[in-house]
């Protein structure tokens, strides 16, 4: 309970008290409003911070006691499960009193508070000594030195019982209109604070739950990733070894038993070798595809022209000698992204252009870039086998091919790697083509 009182508050109270008989002056009203505003601002500040609900209820009780000097206020909280009132605040009441009413039942005639909580109505007991509601608690109240008790139910915004706000006085007293306004205000403010803190606790609980959920999912994802890692590890190791044996021993057969094998037999063994090698390429391609999504992306400035030039120079060395190629490399806008990944994309586009134009008398490859404002598109145009636009949607799908392996070898993984890389960079891929007349493959990269 407050131990010091400012004189201005005292005089304000006195004048207010007189207002019941005389005419209330503007001055006292302003003083009281000032007190209320100051306390309200203080409590709202507490509410905005991390202060616990009991401290805040304490402040509310003290603010009303400051307005109504000599009063003793209490807040009791309603417990729905047991239908009782308790665990509230009453800093002006002796401890024995607070202890005694902690857990009192809600019901008609159980003091002012029990009755108020029961009826959801204001209960004003002007004289504890004579009122039937207090018959059982009269001695306790006298021992605590109080003779009147008005109790206002605290109702939530949905109208549910939250608790009671009570004002006691040391002498029998009947409430004036200003008292009724004040007790209603105290109950409303108490409800605001309690609801706020309960909502906050609920949000906190939700947040903790969400954080726990996120942690669980992250852990599950990490586990799945680990399994994938272990899986691709054993794919890379265990699947390759038998293939090496198949290819190797077929070769031993060809080398050591060539005199015993006729042309058909040799051809059969060659087919075995070729297919084992194809399987090996397939495994390598699948692995690099799965590694791509796990690899860290390191962004740097990209000299796109240099990347295309280097890739082409490397690839043209591996081309069959008879393949005539004209490579037209225009001025390319620089870009931004992962050097190794983009080089892989470029390698794929250029090697496709070379591969699918192998049957033309003179291959013509044109590389260009166009500015789209917020992105740049890089295109590789060739005059090779092209493709039927009807099957365009299959181009970038994994394992899906538009050409027979006999005509153009491949695993059907290359363009799906391209798509994955470009999408990780926030860009798009596209293709245009006409069967027998060539194709243009493009990718766009956002500007940094």
């Amino acid at each position, binding site marked *: 309970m407050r131990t010091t009182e400012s004189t201005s508050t005292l005089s304000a109270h006195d004048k207010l008290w007189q207002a019941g008989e005389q005419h209330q002056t503007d001055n006292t009203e302003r003083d009281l409003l000032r007190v209320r505003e100051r306390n309200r601002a203080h409590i709202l500040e507490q509410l905005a911070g991390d202060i616990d609900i009991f401290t805040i209820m304490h402040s509310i009780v003290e603010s009303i006691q400051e307005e109504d000097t000599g009063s003793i206020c209490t807040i009791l909280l309603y417990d729905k499960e047991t239908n009782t009132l308790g665990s509230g605040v009453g800093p002006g009441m002796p401890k024995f009193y607070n202890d005694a009413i902690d857990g009192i039942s809600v019901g008609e005639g159980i003091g002012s508070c029990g009755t108020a909580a029961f009826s959801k109505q204001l209960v004003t007991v002007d004289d504890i000594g004579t009122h039937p509601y207090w018959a059982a608690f009269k001695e306790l109240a006298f021992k605590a030195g109080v003779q009147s008790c008005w109790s206002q139910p605290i109702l939530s915004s949905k109208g549910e019982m939250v608790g009671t706000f009570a004002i006691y006085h040391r002498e029998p007293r009947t409430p004036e209109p200003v008292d009724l306004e004040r007790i209603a205000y105290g109950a409303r403010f108490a409800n605001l604070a309690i609801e706020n803190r309960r909502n906050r606790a609920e949000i906190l609980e939700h947040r903790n739950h969400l954080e726990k959920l996120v942690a669980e999912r992250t852990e599950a994802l990490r586990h799945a990733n680990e399994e994938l890692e272990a899986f691709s590890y054993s794919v890379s*190791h265990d699947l390759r070894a038998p293939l090496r044996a198949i290819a*190797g021993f077929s070769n031993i057969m060809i080398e050591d038993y060539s005199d015993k094998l006729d042309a058909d037999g040799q051809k059969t063994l060659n087919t075995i070798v070729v297919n084992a090698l194809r399987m090996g390429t397939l495994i390598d391609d699948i692995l690099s595809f799965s590694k791509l999504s796990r690899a860290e992306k390191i962004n740097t400035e990209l000299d796109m022209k240099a990347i295309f030039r280097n890739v082409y120079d490397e690839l043209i060395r591996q081309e069959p000698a008879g393949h005539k190629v004209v490579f037209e490399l225009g001025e390319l806008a620089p870009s931004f992204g992962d050097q190794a990944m983009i080089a892989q994309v470029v390698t794929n586009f250029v090697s496709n252009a070379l591969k699918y134009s192998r049957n033309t008398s003179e291959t013509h490859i044109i590389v260009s870039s166009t500015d789209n404002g917020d992105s740049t598109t890089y295109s590789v145009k060739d005059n090779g086998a092209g493709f039927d636009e009807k099957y365009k949607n299959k181009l970038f799908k994994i394992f899906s091919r538009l050409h027979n392996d006999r005509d153009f070898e491949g695993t059907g993984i290359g363009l799906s790697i391209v798509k994955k890389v470009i999408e990780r960079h926030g860009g798009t891929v596209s293709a245009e083509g006409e069967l027998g007349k060539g194709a243009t493959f493009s990718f766009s990269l956002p500007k940094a």
Partner: protein
Amino acid sequence: MTIKEYPEVLLVEDREEDATLTIRALKKYNLINDIKWLEDGQYALDYLFGTGPEKVLQAVPKLILLDLKLPRVNGLEVLEQIRSSEGLRSTPVIMMTSSKEDVDIKKAYELGVNSYIVKPIDFANFAEAVKQVGLYWLMLNQPPAPSQK
């Protein structure tokens, strides 16, 4: 302790097929006369450190070809023990493995491997790789004189 300077090459490889292919390639190019093949990492350690049932005195091969994934004791563990042994520290060890995993390559080099070779599936390439390894480490490379301990 007497040091046994043979075999010329110790091959530690759990897959018989791979061992056959390796030995075949080495012999094809007349690179070796003498090769010892062991099937797992524990046999290799027993053999190298004279702790096995064979009771061989410490063997110091001219070259050790080591697979990575081996039963009982893996290739990286064998490598670690070789590198912490006085008598074997300077013996060339070549990892010949199917694993292209960056972590394995990194770890092998950290432990002091001399070369790391991913075994090609194609036999011609495989034979070529083995030939290069043999040529370089058995013919070209000049090892330090064996310690006289």
